């Protein structure tokens, strides 16, 4: 590691780790001028991403997603509700994003992380607006019973790009979801049918999977001066603060664009670059998702 010439005698004798902690911005900038990042990635490169389905046996659908060190566990539990009068043929989805104290040194018990409700809202908005799930498919008996899908996403390890990992885990959990076979009992309650069916007729025969149309994929980019860094780590996010999150659906249409302020005011060209990077990333994520879902069908 070569230090900048202007840094003087003190800095030239300084250990790399100490330099990184004391002058984080300069540390990153020395990398950026060489179009590289401390973890060896190029600026536009996302971290290694992997996914596994069915990690939680007590849930109806679940997925574990890893983007670099960031790790998300998403699980869906199906419960029954009476649909509202306005939409008697529709079910409901409730999405919650949690950051338990295990995921980051900045989260303490009893004091929820600031980022959690923000990501929670973003996820709800994205999933409801992109039209991935037809809420009519969650209906059981018109006006009487419908599914309420509780999707809870837990961040197990927070290392940046939390929204991207959370969205991917949500999508993967929905693709893994197996809706239980149920019937109406004599009290008018919906109950799970056991193996022998007990002479009851299931009310949702052949509707155990949701059709996922137009899946949303996202990429968070970090803007610093003229640089665009894709898929930032927690350290990068803390040093350079301007984030842009782009969500595209599987047909390449823009679902949402989120730039929550920050010191860098982005030109249209920078935003276009972010969208282009997201388009490329969406293809990668689609491949990863196809791989895990197809390996599940083999089982």
């Amino acid at each position, binding site marked *: 590691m070569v230090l900048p010439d202007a840094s003087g005698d003190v800095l030239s004798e300084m250990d790399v780790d100490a330099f990184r902690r004391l002058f984080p911005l300069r540390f990153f900038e020395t990398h950026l001028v060489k179009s590289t990042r401390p973890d060896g990635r190029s600026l536009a490169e996302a971290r290694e991403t992997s996914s596994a389905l069915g990690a*939680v046996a007590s849930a109806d659908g679940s997925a574990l997603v890893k983007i670099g060190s960031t790790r998300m566990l998403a*699980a869906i539990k199906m419960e029954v*509700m009476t649909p509202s009068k306005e939409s008697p043929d529709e079910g409901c989805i409730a999405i919650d994003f949690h950051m*338990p104290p*295990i995921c980051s040194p900045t989260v303490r*018990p009893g004091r929820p992380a600031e980022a959690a409700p923000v990501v929670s809202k973003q996820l709800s908005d994205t999933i*409801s607006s992109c039209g991935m799930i037809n809420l009519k498919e969650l209906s059981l008996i018109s006006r009487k019973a419908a599914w309420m899908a509780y999707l809870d996403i837990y961040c197990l390890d927070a290392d940046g790009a939390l929204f991207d990992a959370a969205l991917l885990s949500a999508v993967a959990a929905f693709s893994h979801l197996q809706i239980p076979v149920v019937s109406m009992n004599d009290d008018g309650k919906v*109950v799970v049918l056991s193996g022998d069916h007990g002479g009851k007729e299931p009310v949702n025969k052949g509707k155990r999977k949701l059709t996922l149309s137009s899946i949303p994929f996202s990429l968070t980019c970090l803007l610093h001066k003229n640089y665009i860094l894709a898929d930032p780590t927690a350290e990068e996010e803390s040093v350079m603060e301007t984030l842009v999150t782009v969500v595209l659906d599987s047909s390449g249409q823009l679902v949402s664009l989120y730039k929550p302020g920050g010191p860098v005011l982005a030109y249209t060209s920078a935003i276009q670059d972010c969208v282009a990077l997201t388009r490329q990333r969406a293809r990668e994520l689609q491949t990863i998702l196809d791989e895990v879902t197809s390996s599940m069908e083999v089982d």
Partner: protein
Amino acid sequence: MAGKGGAAPSTYSPSPTTQKTKSRIFGNDDVDWVRSDGREFHQCRPAFFKTGAVNAAAGSAYAEFGNTKVIVSVFGPRESKKAMMYSDIGRLNCNVSYTTFATPVRGQGSDHKEFSSMLHKALEGAIILETFPKTTVDVFALVLESGGSDLPVVISCASLALADAGIMMYDLVTSVSVSGLGKNLVIDPILEEESYQDGSLMLTCMPSRYEVTQLTITGEWSTPKINEGMQICLDACSKLAAVMRACLKGPDSTLEE
């Protein structure tokens, strides 16, 4: 949230909450019943441990006993809360919480105050608090999936996470519980067995020193049964310690010895 606005409608789980037939078998002493996972009465579930599960933490461990899955992260030693009094020795702060999907019926995912306090008491005696004066070590546990014997798994996993973080301890802490079902004692009970138990005994110890840090007994026990239960737990604890030691020495561990 994602649906129509307004107050969330009340929901219920369609899965049956009680299984009536099983309880009779457990209680009946004449019937030779087998455990639903095919184990013998004094056989633990296969234990899996992995250190370094969370990169953001100073030390961490993941433990899986059948369907019981927990992650423990250790942070610190770091600055104690401002309101804390000056202390010559270090402080230990423990927290145990559940995910909303950990239990068969969806829960609230809130902190488990009782387990937090039990975890603190189980570990306190094993940690050399003098090695980090004025500071706090935080031990946070998250139960990803509850499959029975949750607290013993959390305690064992926490001691492994502490070792991974390089916190000085007198010994690893291992914990095992037994359930009394009729005249039988079953070790490492699953959720179903715990719900029908007549009594439970949980023992936490430092196996190399043969010292007990915590012993809790609930329900109906006779003195010879307590002795038998403790002996079973102590044996299981030392076997568990061997598995945990192997995990610390393993090739994928980041611990430098």
